[in-house]
Each structure stands twice: as C-alpha cells, then as structure tokens.
C-alpha cells in the first residue's frame, strides 16, 4: 500500500517539470495518447459510488444491475464519441461551461459553471467521507492504532487527512496529466485487486452454474419480468428503464459532465478525442463482472458460522483455532452482514422483524473473507484507489471550471498565464479543503448525503435537453436554453414533491407537497423525475426559442451539427474510423444482453 502511495506522488513529481503553462496544467497540454485518456475516462467515474454501490446493487437486485452499464452507459458513450466530441474538441472550448458560452451566452454558462463547481466539491467530499467510514467499519487499521497507543476515533480523521494530502499532492504538482495518469494506474490496480476476488469467489460457489443454482432465478437474468414494474427486482418497467436511465440520465451524465469529458479533451487530436469514449466503452462493458459479480457472490456464499480449524504446528502439537463470526455477520445473508445501528451497536430490523442487510459492505466483506494476508493488502489498496480516482476527477474538474469559467470570466480578466496557473493550483487546495468540510458535515448530519444527491439530480436531469437542442437545432436561442434549464429543474422538484415510492414516508423520498402518484420503487421514481425534467426543458426551450431571434448562422459554425462540415476521416482505412469501433461496440453490447437476458 505504501508502495502505491510512493508511486502516485512520484508521478506527480516527475510531471511537475512539464507544467509550464495553464494549458499544461488544466488540459494536459492536449497531448495524451487516446488509450490513456480512454482508461481515465471510465476511471474518473469509478469512484466510491461505483465500486461499493454497484456491488451493493448486485447483492440487492442481482445481474439486473448491469443495466446501469449496458443500457445506462455504453449507448451514451458511443453517442458522445461519434456525435458530440467534435463540438467539444473542435470549438476550442476549454470546458463544458465554456462551450455553453460559445453556443449560448454568459448567463447559461454561469448557471452551469456554478452548479457544476458546487457539485464537484460535494461529490469529492462524499467520496472522502465514504472512504473514511469504510476504513473505520472494516477495522483494518485498528491494530496499528492500538499498538501506537492512539485512540481509535482518530482513524476517521487520519483517513480524511491522508487521502486529502495524497490527492492534493499529485494534482497540485502535475495537474490534469498527473490526475489522468493516476486514474489509469488506479484502473489497473482495481482490476488487479478485484479480479482474483471474482476468481476465488466463483471457484468457491462452484463456477457460474453453481452461482446460478444457489440464487433465485431473477438474480441471474437481467431482462426477466421487465414488461411490468411489479415483476422484476428493480421495480421499473422497460420504458422507464430505457427512457429514464438509458436516455435522459446516462446521456446527461456521459455527454455533459465535464468530469469525464475533460479526459477526452486532453488528447492530441479531434480524432483521438472521439475515440476516447469508444475505447473506454470496451472495458466498461465488462466491468459488471468485476464490480457486480462480487455482490452476487457475496449473497450466494455460505453465511459465516463458527468454524474450527485443526492443524499441527512445528512442534507437533495439535492446535485448534475457532473463528466465531460477529452477530451482524451471522444475522446477514451470505457474506452480506446485517445493518447495525452505529450508536447502539444493535442490529436494525425492518418492519416485519427481519434484519436489514448492509449491502454496502458486500464487497468489503468479500475481500476480508476470501483474501489471505498479502493479497488482502492489494485488495484494500484497490478499494482505496477507487475512492481516490473519483475524488481526483472531481477536483481537477473543479479547478478548471473555477479558474476558466468563474475566476477568469467574472473575477479577474486578462491576467497573465502564470497567474492563472497559480490560481489553478490554489483552487486545487481550496477545492480539497471544501471537500474536507463536506466530509465532516456528512458525518455530523445523517441525511446530508441523500439531500445533496437529490439536489444534484434536480439540477442535472434537464441538462442533456439543452445540449441536444443546442447542438442539433440551429434555431435554439440562449434565452430558450436558459429558461429551459430553469424550468426543467423546477419540473424535477415538483415531480419529486408530488410522487412517492411505495413503503416510504413523505419527506426526503418525495411526496412533500402532496402525494398524487405512487411508484413501485425509488428507482422508478428517480427515472421518471429525470424524464419529466428532460421533457419540460425540451418543450420550454423550443417554445421560448420560437419567439426569440436565432443567432446568425455564421456565428454557429463548429457549434451546431448542420452547420459544421463532417469530420474528415477519408485518410483512414474504414476499420480504423471511430464509426467502425462504434458498430462493433453495439454488436457486443447487444450480445451481452442476449446472453444474460
């Protein structure tokens, strides 16, 4: 683990000498190879929510979780690569909000830049908090702390400070290049740590067929019962899934979030920028086997009970070791322990008296159960790496948007490049400090994480409609885009306030205005909120645009699809063009869906 940290910071130092201009720092000099950016593209997204959350959903819902990949990511990644990247890269915009200024106007950009900056800081803070909590729950450092005579309560503080220093260190020194390099490193580390887990876990339950035999049928089929919301574990019907997750949410994320777009914009040519999301889609397609499968394996495994191991030691004496699981482990299902109340230490029960399962611990407890000393260190490092890559992506996106879109545009215009470079470095420090504040706020107020994520979903849900219309309809006006964004967010808030998932109390889960509609699950509600927000934004933008005056066509060249010459790919053989890769990807993803239907 120590070795990893040394390398991480080493890369920062090695890259420091190349960081001479703000372009080097914020855009990696636009000179990185496509495969590196491609891996960083998915690694930036591979944060805390991804590894822990997908493992948890795998344990809770089964293989249907893979919809988040095969429906909820791949099509959007293909779209951004083929259709949208030429505008981002070709328009010479340095960030997504800056593209909005070129296409629309200052107010649209300011709105997007502000909400995005706030969001990145909070997300990285949440990553930090989740990591510190996990380290605390797993008791991995307890031994070191006890032998050093330190109170155990300090583990939380130490984890936060340590992760902050490491991420700060390598971004401060090497900027986006360093963040991208480290994201690639983390990508391989995550594979190195989780692949053996899947192999050992699968061996233990008797391979894929053994896994299938020990689980309810719905767990290993992703499309079964999708015609109606009540007949599948997700509680969503196919339309809500395809439209809400597959279109609005995933396109909104992969096509407009600067967190991932920035890595593609760091490549050396437009052609490679288009290739980045496509290259990223290949490993992304197989990630379910790495992060969802452990969740399934955890549920399928035998619930721990007292085991006695007998062996003969060097002197010939027979030694018996008995391992007794904790109450939480014994009450759980498979390797997923029951949820305990953090204050009383008692097991939490649901309404019918059965213990609630703490699905978030599915992957961590798999690691602890199957890995012997040695490789366990690697597995835990991989887990930490995933948290840090999520944090780092947020921090670099924050410092770029802050410096270019807020500081340079509204606070101090026309300063020297060196000034902005320094600003970017200090923005990194500021961003990480704010993240730490968020992490502590999250530990003091239980609901703050859920509330924040809810607010983000209101702001993000309508975004894609604005980009779609802006890029593909030249009549779209800036007033239309702005009012569309606002009304889309309002629609999301209203929809959330008027609907409620069944078995939930009005409040944070919705229904705080009045309950007009019940959804079978919170996921269904979430998808439909997005659909409403997108629809409202789409319609309002069109109506307002019709009343306004469109910008001159000459101003929109390079920003709107119909006015921009198609990217010239004639010099490449057909199989090297991004389109060929896209077709291959579609075939593969359809194939995967058919196999696991």
């Amino acid at each position, binding site marked *: 683990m120590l070795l990893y940290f040394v390398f991480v910071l080493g890369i920062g130092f090695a*890259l420091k000498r190349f960081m001479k201009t703000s372009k080097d720092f914020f855009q*990696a000099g636009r000179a990185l190879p496509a495969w590196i950016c491609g891996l960083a593209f998915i690694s930036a997204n591979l944060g805390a929510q991804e590894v822990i959350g997908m493992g948890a959903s795998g344990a809770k819902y089964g293989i249907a979780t893979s919809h988040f990949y095969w429906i909820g990511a791949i099509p959007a990644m293909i779209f951004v690569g083929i259709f949208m990247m030429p505008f981002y890269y*070709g328009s010479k915009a340095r960030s997504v909000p800056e593209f909005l200024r070129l296409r629309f106007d200052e107010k649209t950009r300011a709105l997007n830049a502000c909400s995005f900056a706030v969001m990145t800081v909070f997300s990285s803070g949440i990553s930090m908090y989740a990591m510190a909590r996990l380290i605390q729950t797993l008791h991995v450092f307890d031994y070191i702390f006890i032998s050093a005579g330190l109170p155990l309560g300090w583990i939380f503080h130490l984890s936060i400070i340590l992760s902050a220093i490491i991420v700060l260190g390598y971004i401060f020194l090497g900027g986006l290049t360093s963040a991208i390099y480290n994201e690639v490193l983390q990508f391989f580390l995550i594979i190195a740590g989780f692949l*053996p887990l899947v192999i050992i876990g699968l*061996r233990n339950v008797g391979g894929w067929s053994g896994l299938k035999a020990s689980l309810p049928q719905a767990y290993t089929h992703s499309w079964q019962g999708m015609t109606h919301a009540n007949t599948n574990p997700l509680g969503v019907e196919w339309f809500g899934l395809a439209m809400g997750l597959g279109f609005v949410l995933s396109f909104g994320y992969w096509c407009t979030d600067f967190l991932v777009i920035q890595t593609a914009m760091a490549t050396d040519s437009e052609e490679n920028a288009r290739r980045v999301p496509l290259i990223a889609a290949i490993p992304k397609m197989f990630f379910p086997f790495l992060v969802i499968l452990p969740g399934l394996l955890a549920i399928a495994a035998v619930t721990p009970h007292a085991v006695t*191991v007998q062996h003969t030691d060097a002197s010939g004496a027979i030694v018996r*070791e008995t391992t007794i699981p904790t109450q939480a482990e014994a009450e759980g299902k498979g390797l997923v322990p029951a949820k305990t109340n953090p204050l009383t230490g008692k097991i939490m029960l649901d309404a019918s008296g059965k213990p609630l399962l703490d699905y978030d611990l599915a992957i961590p407890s798999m690691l602890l159960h199957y890995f*012997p000393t040695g490789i366990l260190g690697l597995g835990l490092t991989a887990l930490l790496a995933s948290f840090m890559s999520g944090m780092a992506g947020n921090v670099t996106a924050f410092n770029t948007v802050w410096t270019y879109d807020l500081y340079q545009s509204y606070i101090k215009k026309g300063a020297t490049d060196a000034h902005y470079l320094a600003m970017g470095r200090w923005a990194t420090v500021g961003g990480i400090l704010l993240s730490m504040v968020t992490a502590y706020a999250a530990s003091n107020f239980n609901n703050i994480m859920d509330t924040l994520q809810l607010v983000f979903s209101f702001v993000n849900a309508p975004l894609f409609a604005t980009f779609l219309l802006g890029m593909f309809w030249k009549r779209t006006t800036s007033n239309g885009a702005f009012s569309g964004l606002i009304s889309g967010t309002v629609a999301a808030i209203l929809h959330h306030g008027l609907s409620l998932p069944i078995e939930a109390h009005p409040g944070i889960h919705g229904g705080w205005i009045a309950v007009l509609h019940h959804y079978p699950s919170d996921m269904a509600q979430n998808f439909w909120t997005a659909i409403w927000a997108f629809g409202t934004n789409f319609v309002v933008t069109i109506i307002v645009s019709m009343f306004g005056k469109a910008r001159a066509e000459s101003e929109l060249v*390079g920003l709107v699809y119909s006015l*921009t010459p198609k990217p010239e790919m004639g010099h490449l053989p057909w199989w090297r063009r991004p389109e060929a890769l896209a077709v291959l990807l579609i075939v593969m993803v359809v194939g995967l869906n058919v196999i696991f239907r």
Partner: protein
Amino acid sequence: MNLDLRIPMGLMFTLVGLILSVFGLMTMGDTMYVKSGGLNANLDWGIVLLIFGGTMFLLGRAGQKKALSAPPKKAEPGTGPETVRRGH
C-alpha cells in the same frame, strides 16, 4: 508528454508482484490459505502481476526508445496531416 506511463506502471506492478510471490513462497502451506479455498492466492496472483508489470515495463521502454530514435515529432499538435480539422 515525455513520460511514458507504462514505465512507472510496469515498475509498480513488477514490485507488487515480486513482494506477493515471495511472500506466497514463504507462507506456502500456511493455514491462512483455507480462506481462499486452498489456493495460494499470493503466489499465483503475484506471478500474474509480475508478468503483467514486466510486459508493461518492456513495452514502455521499447516505445520510448522508438520515440527517441524517430525524427522529432510535429511541433504544434493540430497542424499535422493526420489531424485535419475543418469548420473554423
């Protein structure tokens, strides 16, 4: 960019692989491997990582040698023949 990522990455995985496999060799037959179903996970995975890291390192070295011996690349990205950018 003058630093090929494959070199530090290869080095790191080679070292990790080395540590794991040596540790695996030393603890061969230890009771802790009951956990992983009788598999010496340290030794096996250490060797896999060693091979992966070594390959990465060698590829990176070869790539860097090639870059050094090749004539200097185009000065300004975006002006080369393979990056025809139209429309503005």
